[in-house]
Structures are given as C-alpha cells and as structure tokens.
C-alpha cells in the first residue's frame, strides 16, 4: 500500500514541477496563471488522496485525519477558481502587459 501512496505523491510532484516551470517560462501574466492551475489541481489532489490513504492504511484507520484532509481538498477546490477569476479580471482592468494575443474579444467589447 505504501507504494501506491508513493506513486500518488510522485504523480502530484510531477504536475507541481511542470506548473512551476511553466510559471517561470510563460511569456505573460495570464499564461502564468494558466500554468499555476496545474499546481492547484493535480499538484494538490494527488497529495491529498495520498494523505487520506496514508492515514487510513498506515496510521491504522485514523478517520479524523482523513476527513480533515478531505475537507481541505473540497474547500481548496471550491475557493481556488474564485480567487483566480478575481485576479484575472483585476489584472485585465488594471492593464497588465501581455504578449500579442490572437484575439481579444473582451477588450473589443469594452470599447
């Protein structure tokens, strides 16, 4: 069982690493946010599920631990997109620098 947990956490770490590399390499603020969502979804879920399995199988059915981790995951998933949406909108209205976009329907419609 411990190996399944290792695999889940390694999987998570891979996506978190890809997210961080993306955040450093992407050309502008919005693309960086896109890459950071990698960390917020699979980078977090694998660790949470691994932790739940660890508390149930290795820590001998520690339900309190597992349920708290589960709640942590649920609240993370529910609150993260709201923050992302608010940051993106505020950044756009503030006029953050972007690379050449293929199309910008939002800017066209605001004029």
């Amino acid at each position, binding site marked *: 069982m411990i190996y399944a947990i290792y695999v889940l956490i390694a999987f998570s770490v891979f996506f978190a690493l890809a997210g961080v590399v993306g955040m450093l390499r992407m050309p502008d603020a919005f693309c960086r946010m896109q890459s950071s969502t990698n960390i917020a979804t699979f980078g977090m879920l694998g660790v949470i599920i691994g932790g739940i399995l660890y508390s149930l199988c290795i820590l001998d059915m520690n339900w309190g631990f597992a349920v708290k981790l589960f709640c942590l995951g649920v609240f993370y998933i529910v609150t993260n997109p709201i923050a992302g*949406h608010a940051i993106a909108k505020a950044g756009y209205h503030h006029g953050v620098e972007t690379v050449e976009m293929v199309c910008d329907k939002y800017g066209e419609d605001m004029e």
Partner: protein
Amino acid sequence: MKKASFPSVLSTAIVCYIFWLIITGQLVNLIAGEPSAQVLISGAVVSIGTALFAAKFFIHESPFYLFNPAKFFTMVFYCLVIFMGELWKANWDVAKRALSPKLPVNPGIVKVPVNLKSEYGESMLANSITLTPGTITMDIVEEKGQDYYYIHWIDVASQDGAEAGDAIKGTLEKWVGRIWK
C-alpha cells in the same frame, strides 16, 4: 440585495452544522452513541448565527434543491468522474506545453455563449472552466437574453464563439445542465 428568507437560512445552517460535525470529529462519536452535548450545542449556535448573516449572499433560488438525492448524486458523479476526466486531459496538455522546449502558446480571449438558466449552474460551469488548466473565465455578461463568458484561452483553436465553446466546455455543460437545469 434581497433579504434572506427562513428556508434559505435553515438550509445554510444545516450545511454549516454538517461541516461542524465532520471537522470537530463529532460525527464518529454520534454514530458510536457517545456525543458531547457541549460541542453539539455550541455548533448549533455558531451555525445558526453564521447562516443568519451569510444566507442572503449564499442562496437566491430554491434553498433545498441539492437536498434532492438524485441531483446530489449527479453532482458527486460529475465532480468525481466527468470533471476529473476533463481535468486529466487539460492538465496533461498544459504540463506538456510548459515543459516543451519551444513553449507553444497561442493566447487570446474568446467570447463563448452559455445555455444555462440557473445562476448556480452558471457559476459552477465558470468555476469548472477556471479550474481546468489552460482556460480562465474572466467575466460573465448578458446580451439580449443570451449569457456569454469571456474566457482567456492558452491555445486559441477557433475565434468563433460556438466552436470555441465546444472545444472548451466539452461535455461539462451538458452535465451541469443535468444538475441545475
């Protein structure tokens, strides 16, 4: 801002109380038949107090809609199966882009029509899209009775609203429509 009705306060209080029971670990004690009255009562007071303040921001339509088991289990199925499938595809795609030496990005903001009536459904779909790597919902507007999302997309495959909508939303919209109408 509308005033909170009694049913909306009640449903918010029930949800808060369930979370209180789970987080304090009382649910296990309750099943084992040895609950601590102190924790149960203080939880009830706190959750009713929270509900009185928060219900008017939280609930605008029918308050007990998700207490219907069919809708609730559809939502659980959506979160665990449909959404995870989309998440897997998108995560893999963005991770490949970030790690590839040429960094193939093609960003842009597209305008996508949405055919959902309920405001919960709209916000759930918008949040699902934001949570998927590669797409961020920036704003929701209504024009002539039709709702539109503005979506920042890392790889613009089509500038046309309907085609872009099919590529971004995939099967998500159909399933959210089943939950929320």
